[in-house]
């Protein structure tokens, strides 16, 4: 009897306890929200940000960093597509909260939502920048975050400018703080320059500044593609008389060019696997162009397609599980997708003439070139749904390459009368010309974020 009573007691307690601890539906029945938001439809708005001249705390600013960094970073923020930079000549004196408040007050009056103020510590060999972010939409201008960056002072060269790199890093972090996604300013692009006689590959900052040549063989060099670690570039070159596949190391000037594939026939259209271990490429060694996977370390070769028609221009999905490619097996060239081992080939695009597929780093989109009199860039889901144009009515637009955020694209266009490289957002907006050289600029490739 007593046992039963005790058991009942415990059962009751257990029920009560479970009642207390039963996990509620994910978020309900806890505390009330901190805030409520109403969201209506409507166009996207940019964040207006003010970046006044940086303040030098120690050292002398002979290089003009206090002005240069905000300028470069401000341009990065504009190119990010998420910000408008509010112009203003206000300077912020060091250690003067009242003056800072006044500056923010002026910028807020000019429409700024946020402010970024940098404090520079300049030494002979190092530069340290502390960047403080403020919310200018709240009456007291509360601080949001404070971040420190530093850079080693090294000799400037056309290919490397530590001052710009520092500014790019600052901008990328500001983008992260305000959007949740890191920016892509600390990246490079490579592209091909020159008339049809000789085409050399160059590397520049993603905004087109600081061009430096990385091939100088006087031959024809094509289709540069950055490796996932951003240390090397695969490309096709006729430097030995045939279209062979090579790899160069743009940041290691003394390191020579490495031959990746020199089979009989075409060796072209390289695409790195996401892990950087392999390359998908097109070889015609067996008669007609087929897609292979080359393991870089061992040189092992695996053939993926077996079809009498042309199969070319492979591009890996970010998971490494699938490869999209171009084939004319169904008539005019279209985009197809297959598994990593070549199985389960399915057609992605229909009715049209489609080439140059590039799989988005986010995985949900493939950009390609559609021939429609002129060439235009389109995107489609890997499943073949929702095709839509990104460019139209502006000359030829082709050869797109994704930024590592999957939100920006570079491509070549002749809308100005000559081939130049442009940048745009994934929705086709905010197109910006980023090369201005005298020769043609083609085949852009956007690097991953630099290590």
């Amino acid at each position, binding site marked *: 009897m007593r046992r039963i009573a005790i058991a009942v007691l415990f059962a009751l307690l257990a029920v009560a306890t479970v009642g207390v601890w039963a996990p509620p539906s994910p978020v309900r029945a806890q505390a009330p929200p901190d805030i409520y*938001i109403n969201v209506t439809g409507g166009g996207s708005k940019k964040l207006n940000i003010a970046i006044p001249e940086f303040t030098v705390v120690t050292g002398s600013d002979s290089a003009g960093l206090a002005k240069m960094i905000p300028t470069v970073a401000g341009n990065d923020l504009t190119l990010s597509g998420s910000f408008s930079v509010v112009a203003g000549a206000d300077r912020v004196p060091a250690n003067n909260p009242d003056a800072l408040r006044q500056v923010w007050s002026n910028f807020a009056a000019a429409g700024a939502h946020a402010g970024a103020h940098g404090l520079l510590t300049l030494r002979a060999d190092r530069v340290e920048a502390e960047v403080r972010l403020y919310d200018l939409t709240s009456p007291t201008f509360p601080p949001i975050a404070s971040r420190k960056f530093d850079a080693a002072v090294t000799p400037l060269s056309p290919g490397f400018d530590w001052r710009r790199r520092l500014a790019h890093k600052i901008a990328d972090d500001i983008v992260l703080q305000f959007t949740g996604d890191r920016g892509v300013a600390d990246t490079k692009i490579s592209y091909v320059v020159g008339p049809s006689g000789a085409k050399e590959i160059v590397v520049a900052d993603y905004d087109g500044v600081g061009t430096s040549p990385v091939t100088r063989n006087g031959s024809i060099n094509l289709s540069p593609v950055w490796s996932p670690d951003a240390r090397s570039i695969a490309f096709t070159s006729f430097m030995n008389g045939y279209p062979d596949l090579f790899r160069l190391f743009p940041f290691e000037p003394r390191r020579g060019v490495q031959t990746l594939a020199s089979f009989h026939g075409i060796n072209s259209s390289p695409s790195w696997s996401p892990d950087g271990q392999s390359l998908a490429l097109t070889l015609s060694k067996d008669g007609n162009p087929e897609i292979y996977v080359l393991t870089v370390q061992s040189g092992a070769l695996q053939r993926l397609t077996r079809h009498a028609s042309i199969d070319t221009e492979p591009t890996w999905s970010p998971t490494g599980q699938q490869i999209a490619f171009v084939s004319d097996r169904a008539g005019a060239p279209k985009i197809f997708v297959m598994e990593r081992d070549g199985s389960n080939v399915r057609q992605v695009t229909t009715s049209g003439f489609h080439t140059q597929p590039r799989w988005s780093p986010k995985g949900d989109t493939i950009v390609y070139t559609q021939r429609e009199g002129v060439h235009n860039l389109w995107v489609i889901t890997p499943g073949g749904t929702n095709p839509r144009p990104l460019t139209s009515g502006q000359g030829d637009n082709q050869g797109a390459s994704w930024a590592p955020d999957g939100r920006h694209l570079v491509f070549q266009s002749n809308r100005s009368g000559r081939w130049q490289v442009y940048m745009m957002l994934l929705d086709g907006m905010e197109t910006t010309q980023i090369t201005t050289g005298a020769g043609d600029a083609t085949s852009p490739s956007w690097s991953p974020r630099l290590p």
Partner: protein
Amino acid sequence: MHFHIGPALGRIRLPLGPAFVSAILHVVLLIIVIFSASMWSDKRTKPVYVVLAPATAAIGSPKGVDMPPRVEEPAPRPPAPPADLPQREAPRDLPVRDLPARDLPSRDSVALPDRTLPARAPTAPARVRPAEKELASLPNPSPSPVPTAPTAARRDSSTPPAPAAPPPPPLGAATGSPTGAGPLTLNVSDFPYAYYIRQVAEKIRAQWNGKAIPGQQPAVIFEIRRDGRLNAVGIDKSSGNAYYDQVALRAINDAGPFPPLPEEFKKPMLRIGLQFVFDPTGG
């Protein structure tokens, strides 16, 4: 499970009757506590509303808000449930979702956007709203040339400023808002970071665009971790249609990650209640 009675109780006879009564009373009490706690938490003591209409933003208490003229529906949140029940049947016809919002022509016009920003005047000059009277309660942080007089004068005239005037009225200091204009009464909130709310709303809006259906307006609750990642998402008030609820949840999930929480905000999580509103003006 084997159970030992402690030495003190080992010998004596357990007072079973009273123990029973006591246990039952305890359980009842517990249930009452839990119940009332959940009731209390549902009541949401004085929530702060953030309304981000396309062009302007207002932040204030539910009473004080006075929405922009665009919406003629009743104040969206609290005890609203019965209000939208009748509507629920009508809007079943999907075609309402008008996608053409992203029309092609705009792409052309944007071919070379105004990157030469200098001296950009902020868009949407000051839609001034009556709620500005709340500003009086705000500390005016700066003695800057921001007299409240001009603002007040403009409010009286109740017409928007001439579009030609490039710089908007100097509203920044005390009235700074996500668009540089409009009223803000953030001091009632635990979370005085208007920029953050704005950015979160923008990210969700971008995901939700084109999926707005009148009468199908679920409210969701979600939490953002310090690093900006989503912690949990749930439906707070169903739209009555499971599909639209799912669309709303998906919009939140796809909108992440959000910006990291401001360093000065010390809670481990920001909890946000969000009401999807169909804007009949199309925004």
